[in-house]
């Protein structure tokens, strides 16, 4: 089971700033473990952030995004109490969606 994305969103002057920290190992597939065996690639391939069902930002990751992918972005609109949802899926097909209310 994956851990929930940590997310914070603050609206000010008509713009909402979103900070998100997805919880994922982001294994490149090139790292070796202590016994010298390659650790298989395991990483988030896709994510999207939605506001009232509308996609604000979506993206694709390769293996060079750091462990626990971190993002800051901004969008016009959004008000305190609105829900934002961040969804991701990884190369093993695992998915999760987490929500936060704009503060």
């Amino acid at each position: 089971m994956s851990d929930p994305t940590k997310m914070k969103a603050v609206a000010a002057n008509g713009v909402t700033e979103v900070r998100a920290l997805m919880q994922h190992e982001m294994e490149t597939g090139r790292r070796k473990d202590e016994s010298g065996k390659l650790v298989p690639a395991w990483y988030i391939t896709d994510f999207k952030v939605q506001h009232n069902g509308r996609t604000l930002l979506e993206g694709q990751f390769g293996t060079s995004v750091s462990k626990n992918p971190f993002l800051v972005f901004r969008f016009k609109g959004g008000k305190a109490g609105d829900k934002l949802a961040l969804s991701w899926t990884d190369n093993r097909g695992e998915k999760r969606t987490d929500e936060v209310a704009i503060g």
Partner: protein
Amino acid sequence: MQENDHSTIDSSRRQALKAGVGLGLFGMLATLGLLPKSAWAAVDRKVFEAKSLKEAFQAMGGLAPADSNLVILDVPETAENGAMVPITVESKFPRTEQISILVEKNPTALVENLTMAEGTEGFITTRIKMAQTSTVIALVKADGKFYKAVREVKVTAGGC
């Protein structure tokens, strides 16, 4: 510049047609998961396998992005930990549709592709892995055209 006007989607479709693969077969292979395909977006995952900057731009549709001072790339001059290099890309173009980050000397060049909906600013802060000292490229798509900003980051301990 002509090449820049084609989206990567158009280009991959063109390549599929060029290769003589019927759309029916193409669709079937995609459904069976035999083609590398992004989960939500119509982006070919092949672009993430490109080993060099040249290959990556080729795979993204034959891009030849122009340098632009409207693309602001903020990276440290020296990164002590290549596993976590902070990066901020800001595009001053009014309608920024996409920001991509590439690292020339990583095992695969393309790090991430981000697509902004209307109303989402051309701004992103994130953290990337760097294998060694390399140029970092911020690629921006605005109004259907591609632009870039390039900076070198010295890496003391590689993180790939």
